[in-house]
């Protein structure tokens, strides 16, 4: 048994949020560089501007994008850890609150009906898993809403099968057009329940861009979806071109005999995510 004060989780979330807001993930920089070298005209201009922006953000320690997002936090908590101190959600929110004040990040969280801003970017969207061991893995993903707004969840029939999954993914990106800041990274959940499917899609966004699922039938959906999306020729910022998506990552879970849920979570080209194990 390891006893851990949730203050340590708060401090870690604060560190991760500050880092994530100010830099693109390395796999994202590589993907954007690859895309820029393939495009011409306004699309090349857009991608060059984005790479220059990432350098400016790092040099001036500014948020890469002004939409510093809704704080999505995934904790994988070893079952031999005993948490003490402030309640877990409070601790995570405390980390977010401090980072958004200290980093001059935009506070973007509000009441859905009155639209009154909570003023400190809390609450975070907190997901927890209990796993073996005595450590905690913390994933931090600040999620912008230009792309979140373009995400979809569809309850397909089992008969629609693999082809239905593929067309759902591609159609979601087509419908989104230029609005989610392409080139996008596409996280897909296949199976599970209604709620679990959406979470699978979110977790897929934590995978490295370009990585492939261990199951070959799932990996083949990732490959085919990426090719079909890039044949849409929406391009960077919707300016046309051959790179509409920099990656497609699918996660899969068993579902009910009557259903085939598919969730497509769109991530803009500003892929920011940080991980630490404490």
């Amino acid at each position, binding site marked *: 048994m390891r006893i851990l004060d949730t203050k340590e989780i708060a401090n870690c979330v604060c560190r991760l949020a500050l880092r994530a807001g100010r830099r693109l993930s390395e796999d994202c920089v590589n993907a954007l560089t690859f895309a820029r070298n393939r495009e011409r005209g306004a699309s090349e201009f857009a991608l060059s501007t984005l790479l220059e922006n990432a350098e400016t953000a790092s040099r001036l320690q500014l*948020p890469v994008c*002004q939409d510093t997002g809704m704080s999505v936090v995934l904790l994988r908590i070893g079952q031999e850890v005993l948490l003490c101190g402030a309640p877990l959600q409070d601790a995570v929110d405390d980390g977010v609150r401090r980072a958004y004040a200290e980093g001059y990040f*935009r506070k*973007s969280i509000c009441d859905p009906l009155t*639209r009154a801003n909570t003023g400190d970017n809390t609450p975070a969207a907190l997901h927890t898993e209990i796993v073996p061991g005595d450590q905690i893995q913390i994933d931090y993903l600040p999620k912008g809403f230009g792309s979140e*707004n373009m995400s979809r969840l569809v309850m397909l029939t089992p008969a629609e099968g693999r082809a239905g999954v593929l067309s759902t993914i591609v159609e979601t990106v087509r419908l989104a057009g230029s609005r989610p*800041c392409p080139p996008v990274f596409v996280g897909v959940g296949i199976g599970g329940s209604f709620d679990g499917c959406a979470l699978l899609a979110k977790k897929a966004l934590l995978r490295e861009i370009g990585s492939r699922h261990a199951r070959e039938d799932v990996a083949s959906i990732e490959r085919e979806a990426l090719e079909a999306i890039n044949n849409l020729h929406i391009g960077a910022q*919707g300016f*046309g071109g051959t790179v509409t998506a920099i990656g497609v990552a699918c996660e899969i879970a068993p579902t009910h005999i009557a259903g085939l849920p598919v969730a497509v979570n769109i991530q803009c080209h500003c892929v920011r995510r940080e991980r630490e194990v404490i």
Partner: protein
Amino acid sequence: MEMNRIRLPLGETARILRAGDCVLLSGTIYTARDCAHRRLFELLDAGEPLPFPLRDAFLYYAGPCPAPQGMACGSCGPTTSARMNSFAPRLLDLGLGGMIGKGEMNEETRRALIRNQGVYFAAIGGAGALYGSAVRKCECVAFPDLLSEAIYRMEVEGFPLVVAIDSRGNSIYSEKTSNGIRSIHS
């Protein structure tokens, strides 16, 4: 890359710009997003004056991050313009020179741009740090209670933009034939 530098107010340049042109824009712009637009329309409906002169002005669909010490503005990239489709035509008809945002705008907005010789520029979504560091002065001119959604007057220098819909109604999103860098000063 030799870029076309242009300055606001656009004057005759508005007619020369073509969809797909890449430019560096300098001058005075005003930020406004969803909530600020709703307030502007309340003022218009009540017959009250607007907090800034609309004639030839450019709206920037953006909500900046707070400014760190020593900077005029924090990160400040564009937000999705489509959400402002219900507002843009009326403002263009009242004299607005054009808008800066990201992504497509609808047919009503495109027609209003043609009608009023306006221009819609696409800023590069996600390049918040670059745009923020190109803001030389930033001052809140209305609705400070809206925080990042308030209206700010900004003096900007060298904003990297692409002409998305030109004054003839050509759109980079429908043409898919970006011509990129061509000299507009020759």
